[in-house]
């Protein structure tokens, strides 16, 4: 049956600068697409113990069965690779228009291998691949690199690129796609290690579905659900559609759950000066969508920089308002916007950059770190902007921080490790594990480290779950990890699941591809992927000791707003035991043979041993 997938991946050999089509076989197809394809391919083709920046690492960039269709909120593309930041398997996502364009090339993704003999740009036109010199854009920022590719290859190409951070192997370097970001885990450094400065895609093909009539009906139904959500005053997606993801900061602040001053405090009194409403009120604001999305949560702002020149930014997003805002005691929306721009220009993850800087500012206050040019004080604009530059350039103190918060604390010593707010060396996302115990378990057990995309954030912050309770959180976290992994095979925007009924996913899948799965079977695919990720990490030497939180999480949050919220170590360990039990893993956090066989992946048993 003709469906929405092309069952073809393009394997690009950077070393030999050549490419060839690879058919998707039935076994791979059972992983649906996106994160499923990436995870399965990395498991099969990459030894978990390799150096992530060696030419043995691979980047799988893929899309899913709903990419490029009329279904709303499936614009993203997925990258899977071994992370240079965490040493784990990494999956990360960028929205915008890249995902659809990849599908319009008549392919489901590309596999990048090897290392180019010289810095290159890669052009993919339908299934044809060509290499071009990147000489003229070396040292350039992501926006300039993408502009250059549009001038060279045509204004209609959709692009991805790295900035200087990716060139310099900064462990928190991201890959950018027209202001949308494959943000977490350092994928930009991996692309840089392959000497690929950017890629451009131009497709002429169409995307059909197996059952046009049913698909159109599902699409209409889904659009109505989203429109209704957007009309509701207190629906999170509705709030995002009006002022962007920064809409929720006030709510989080009021619960004493907004990480402030390197997670010492849970409330930022000046939060209302840098949240989504503040930007919308203070600056010209225009809503921007990803491909086919009726929610349009991307907010483009025009503002004047500190030097009074006119500028613009699509953002900042909520997570950045924490990492370059409250966590640094930065209450200046202009400094925040410029800090965001700098991260974009260098091509870096605003989250891990901000979290690592917050740790550095605290250590500077204690006399443990210093810098010849910057005061390194919380809330100081010059320190914030100056240190971002130094990280991107790997200059002085920036070289230490460029390796990630845990790596920096290991080298620094002097009791600094407990205040490095990270899991597996990936900086915390904008949520406080002490305030939300489900988030605590989700951060600790995340296969990519401190991940907020698979945490019960909405239910805990909105009060559907008791956020201080440990009770029952283990099965809830397991369920959300499996479900989100499943929807990332499609590749859904994370916000889609906030309002869409889950039954919609297998229904869409069937109408698009003709493949029938029950909702349970669909979620089991997510579980299978979660277990494969875990096996990869075990193969990279990880186990229970990596599923933990920094010492600061086991001390009460300061300030009245958070009511002394703390994680009790024994209760955390008991929750972890329960989590491993509901997963069918050993007490050391490794999937058992029985579990792998139950999931139909028994052949991987022993891989993580």
């Amino acid at each position, binding site marked *: 049956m003709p469906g929405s997938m092309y069952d073809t991946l393009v394997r690009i050999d950077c070393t030999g600068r050549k490419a060839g089509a690879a058919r998707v076989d039935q076994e791979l197809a059972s992983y649906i697409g996106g994160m499923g394809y990436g995870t399965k391919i990395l498991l099969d083709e990459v030894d978990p113990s390799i150096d992530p920046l060696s030419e043995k690492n691979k980047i799988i960039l893929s899309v899913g069965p709903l990419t*490029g*269709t*009329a279904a*709303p909120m499936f614009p993203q593309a997925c990258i899977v690779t071994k992370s240079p930041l965490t040493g784990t398997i990494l999956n990360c996502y960028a929205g915008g*228009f890249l995902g659809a364009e990849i599908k*319009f090339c008549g392919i489901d993704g590309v596999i990048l291998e090897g290392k180019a003999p010289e810095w290159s740009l890669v052009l993919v036109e339908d299934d044809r691949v060509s290499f071009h010199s990147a000489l003229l854009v070396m040292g350039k920022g992501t926006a300039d690199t993408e502009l250059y590719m549009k001038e060279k290859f045509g204004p209609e190409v959709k692009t991805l690129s790295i900035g200087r951070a990716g060139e310099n192997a900064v462990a928190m370097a991201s890959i950018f796609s027209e202001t949308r970001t494959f943000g977490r885990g350092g994928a930009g450094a991996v692309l840089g290690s392959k000497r690929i400065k950017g890629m451009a895609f131009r497709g*002429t*093909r*169409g*995307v*059909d*579905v197996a059952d*046009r009539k049913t698909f159109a009906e599902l699409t209409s139904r889904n*659009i109505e659900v989203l*429109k209704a959500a957007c009309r509701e005053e207190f629906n999170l997606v509705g709030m995002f559609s009006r002022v962007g993801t920064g809409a929720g900061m006030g709510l989080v602040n009021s619960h004493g759950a907004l990480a402030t001053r390197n997670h010492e405090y849970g409330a930022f009194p000046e939060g209302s000066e840098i949240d989504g409403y503040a930007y919308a009120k203070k600056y010209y604001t*225009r*809503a*921007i*969508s*990803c*491909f*086919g*999305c*009726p929610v*349009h949560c991307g907010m*483009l702002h*025009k503002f004047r920089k500190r030097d009074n020149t006119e500028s*613009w930014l*699509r953002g900042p997003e909520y997570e950045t308002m924490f990492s370059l805002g409250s966590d640094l005691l930065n209450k200046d929306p202009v400094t925040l916007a410029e800090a965001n721009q700098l991260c974009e220009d260098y091509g870096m993850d605003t989250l891990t950059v901000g979290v690592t800087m917050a740790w550095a500012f605290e250590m500077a206050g204690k006399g443990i770190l210093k810098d010849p040019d910057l005061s390194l004080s919380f809330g100081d604009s010059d320190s914030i902007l100056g240190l971002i530059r130094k990280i991107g350039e790997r200059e002085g103190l920036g070289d230490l921080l460029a390796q990630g918060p845990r790596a920096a604390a290991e080298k620094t010593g002097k009791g600094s490790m407990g205040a490095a707010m990270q899991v597996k060396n990936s900086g915390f996302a904008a949520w406080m594990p002490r305030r939300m115990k489900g988030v605590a378990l989700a951060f600790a057990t995340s296969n990519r480290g401190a991940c907020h995309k698979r945490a019960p954030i909405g239910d805990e912050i909105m009060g559907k779950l008791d956020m201080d309770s440990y009770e029952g959180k283990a099965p809830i976290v397991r369920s959300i990890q499996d479900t989100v992994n499943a929807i990332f095979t499609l590749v859904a925007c994370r916000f889609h699941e906030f309002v869409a009924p889950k039954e919609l996913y297998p229904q869409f899948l069937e109408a698009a591809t003709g493949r029938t799965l029950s909702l349970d079977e669909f979620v089991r695919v997510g579980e299978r992927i979660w277990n494969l990720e875990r096996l990869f990490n075990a193969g990279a030497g990880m186990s229970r000791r990596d599923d933990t939180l920094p010492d600061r999480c086991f001390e009460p949050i300061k300030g009245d707003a958070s009511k002394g919220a703390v994680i009790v170590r024994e209760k955390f360990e008991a929750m972890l035991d329960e989590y491993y039990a509901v997963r069918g893993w050993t007490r050391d956090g490794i999937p058992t043979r029985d579990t792998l066989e139950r999931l139909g992946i028994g052949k991987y048993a022993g891989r993580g041993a």
Partner: protein
Amino acid sequence: MGTAFAFDLEKCTECERCMLACATVKVGHVQLLQSRIAIERRWPELPGIRVCRFDDCAGHPCIASCPAEAISDARGTVLIDGDACTGCEACVEECPFEAIFMRDGIAKKCDFCAGDPECARACVTVAIAKKEA
């Protein structure tokens, strides 16, 4: 009843659902190259919308430009006869709104969907609508 669009570019979020809907009605599936409407991103400025303006286009220069007389004005709806089109691209050059596209050697443009444009129906923010007479 006239034939024209009403645009509110401040409301356009550049989601391209108009293009998606247009392509789907023209060729049955999503193939944006076949869309008769195109959104042009001009960040940070407002986007451009490339589509026929019908009643709002003075004199319809495409009609006069066509040596094959393949373009006609049927009570306000300017249409290209694909069978008569020779693919000379004269109309593409002439259109002040860059709204005529060459596809498979033939000039293509918006036909206003027989009075009920799919793009306007698909636009969630009502950035594009049918202009009321």
